[in-house]
């Protein structure tokens, strides 16, 4: 049977055109800063100062990239970020899932108390100073653990995971128990392998969280060689914007700032189109089946 094409009304066509034009305009507005940033990073400082750089680089060169990368400092911060992101994501997945799984069991004693208490932390935090005091009292000041621990368990992500775990058929777990697995065995051998979609999504969430996190590094890391690239970038930008200290101010060249921003954002920007569907899926996975 030949498929009949649905005829679009004129109004719908107009709507589609307007919609497309509007979206294109919004996209252009959003893309422009990135393109401008990239153009600046490949331009000379003189051209930037002269206001000649627009969408395309002027006096195209890669000297700034070479200088930044040759300095060693930026590479070190970058390396720190990679280590922290990978390590933090792995630990966060482990701990979050270990919290979410038992909470997904209605038979868990105290579930009705523990659940609300966990949600309580979404609305009320201890505050920055008390949290900081707790961390340094635990001896975590200026340690990698001090940077990683505060972000290890996100309540929101735990709720998403709990919702997913709740959808796993009870019969599968009971079958595992009949075959001799204890609760931990069921979790690692049955529940986790069946939860790869939510784990993949959460991995991406946590990865982006650690990659962009400068604030915990600012709070808990004192030694310069330990800081992640996000904090370094934040310092670069704040230095240029901070006018209070005008007597001792520094002019950070626009091309250096641009290069640092491009290098920091590039991995996530490159990966984002490929992982975007998982982000959306993740929301659906956790949200619809609660």
């Amino acid at each position, binding site marked *: 049977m030949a498929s009949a094409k649905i005829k679009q009304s004129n109004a719908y066509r107009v709507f589609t055109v307007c919609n497309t034009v509007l979206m294109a305009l919004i996209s252009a507005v959003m893309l422009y800063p990135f393109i401008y940033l990239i153009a600046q990073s490949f331009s000379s400082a*003189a051209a*930037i*100062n*002269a*206001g000649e750089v627009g969408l395309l680089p002027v006096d195209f060169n890669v000297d700034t990239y070479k200088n930044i990368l040759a300095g060693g400092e930026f590479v070190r911060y970058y390396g720190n970020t990679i280590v922290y992101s990978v390590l933090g994501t792995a630990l966060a997945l482990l701990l979050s899932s270990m919290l979410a799984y038992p909470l997904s069991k209605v038979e868990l004693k105290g579930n009705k*108390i523990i659940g609300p208490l966990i949600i309580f932390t979404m609305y009320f935090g201890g505050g*920055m*100073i008390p949290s*900081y*005091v707790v961390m*340094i009292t635990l001896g975590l000041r200026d340690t990698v653990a001090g940077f990683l621990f505060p972000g290890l368990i996100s309540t929101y992500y735990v709720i998403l995971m709990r919702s997913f775990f709740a959808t796993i058929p009870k019969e599968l777990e009971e079958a595992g128990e009949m075959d001799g697995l204890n609760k931990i065995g069921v979790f690692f051998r049955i529940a986790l392998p069946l939860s790869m979609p939510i784990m993949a999504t959460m991995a991406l969430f946590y990865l982006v969280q650690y990659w962009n996190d400068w604030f915990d590094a*600012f*709070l808990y890391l*004192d*030694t*310069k060689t330990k800081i992640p690239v996000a*904090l370094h970038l*934040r*310092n*670069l*930008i*704040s*230095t240029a*914007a*901070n*006018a*209070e*200290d*005008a*007597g*001792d*101010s*520094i*002019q*950070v060249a*626009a091309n250096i700032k641009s290069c640092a921003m491009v290098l920091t954002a590039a991995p996530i920007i490159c990966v984002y189109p490929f992982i975007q569907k998982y982000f959306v899926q993740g929301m659906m996975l956790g949200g619809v089946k609660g």
Partner: protein
Amino acid sequence: MKTSKKLLSMLLALVMLLSLVACGGGNSGSSNSGNSGNSGNSGGSSNSSANNGGGEEQAPAPGDVDNGDGTFYNEELGYTYGATFKSDEPLTYTIMFNDNDAYPIKDSWKTDGIFKTITDMTNVSLDLNEVNNASYGEKVGLLINAGTAPYIIPKMYGDAQYVNGGGIVAVSDWVQYMPNYTGMIDKYDLQADVDLNRQADGKYYRLEGLKETALQDYSLLIRKDLFDAAGYDVTELEKTWTWEDFAEVLKGVKEYMVSQGIIGANDYIWSDRWCGATSGYGTGGYLLRLIAHSYGIECTWSAGNLTYNADLYYDEAADEFKMSAGTDEFKQMLKVVQGMVKDGILDPETWTQDDTVADSKFYTGKTALIGTNRSMLVAQDEAVAEQLGAGNYELYEILLPMGTTSYQDDNSRKECGVCISSSALNDMSESEFIRLMRFVDWLFYSDEALTMTKWGVEGETYTVDADGNYSLTPGYYCGGLTIPQTSDDQVDMRIELGYAGGNYMYSGSRELLASAFSADLRDFYDRMAEYRTLRPQAPAVPLEEDDSEMVNMWGAGFKTELETWILRFCMNQDGYQDIDAKWDEFQAALQGQNAQNIIDMYNNAYQASK
């Protein structure tokens, strides 16, 4: 189920109760530590009461012996203090360190540079808590509030926010043990300036940088070659010119630039920096402040105290605070600025654009003047040279035009300062704490340390000739002192050894402060001293915490309203071109934002503090 709910409720109530008890406990602990601080000060209590009243007098500590040469020896703990500081036994003090990206700290500073020199001179090792320049203020706040700050906290621009928390020491209770600090106050007659920093309890919590004179930092940098070509001898005109005269000169310069095809008839010749919302200085920025001060009033980005919010100024004749925006001088200032915009001289984008946009217009020769300050001057010269080519232009830092007064803008002889963490007071005995304060006194206020932190070690990094002129030894140049590199084998003293950094060199005589200035800058300051006068300091108004909060609340709305109107007038917006016609409406709008309440609260607090 009901029982479990009851249990849960009781549990939560218990937790809340315990939290309250814990909070109460914390307070009592801090008040205890405060008491211990006071009792620790009991030895000099008579002096501290005198201090609260005003004068900073010296007092001996137990075991002090006068060496008769400007130094003293403390027999109890074994250290020399005064013009020098040297401990018999090695000491270590924790200290915050503001790590600047322009000259990041290096290991060589500890092995060969400033920190080794400090240890060699004093037997004190500094245990640094390094924080990047960009995060410094926030990190300091965090550490003070968490009670974990190092003992010495330099580079502090404010302290009021930490006073109630008890995280920092009321240093005014201890200055009687600091001979260099008190000596500097006496020598430069700075007591009234220092008293401005007193809080509602009559004490002050920050040892500010003290300077013999206020050096005007911000001014205008002009293309002198264009002014000359247009027929204006600015070196003569600047001695007495007013803003109205200045506007006429700029009109002439514009005519010349248009006639030469440098710019078009619709272009502006002045597009400034430090004024846009992105500059960090707030709307109106430095420019309106400079102009307002020349009229003896305040406007925007003013002297970092609470009056900033309300643009209050002190009327000496009436001995009270008044609202700047209600004065004839304010109206006159607005007319001058609006006139320059109307005449196509001053770019209205000045109040919206990013600083770099203003810079690029000046660097490429599209404008004839721009704001400058000491730290920007050299960079601006280099950037113009890069765009226009050396020898094709001449820059000149002008004396700011006068309003109704000849006041220069800067009138503060103080700089950022040093706070002392309360943990020092808690960790040390009274004698040990006095020793710490005397080390701080040496490091931040003695001639010996001020010279060392700025120039390094005599004979090694610098020399002084018979006329008192300082110069670096051949192996060094110094970006921080604006001493340029002249040969490839030179290294930057600040970068390699850490001298001339921003953590220590706040205070000093005019001679020391200007010791590294270029000939042009020295000339600028000589002209300023000859043709301009120092604006009197407004008295301090120590507001109680509640009043302070109330003023801040009123001030936020007032400031927004005021800035909106200022911009409407200054940018010559439609409907606001006739300032006289709009004046009553403007005043009514300000009154609607609690203007009178703010004025009354200040004046009441001021009268009460007398």
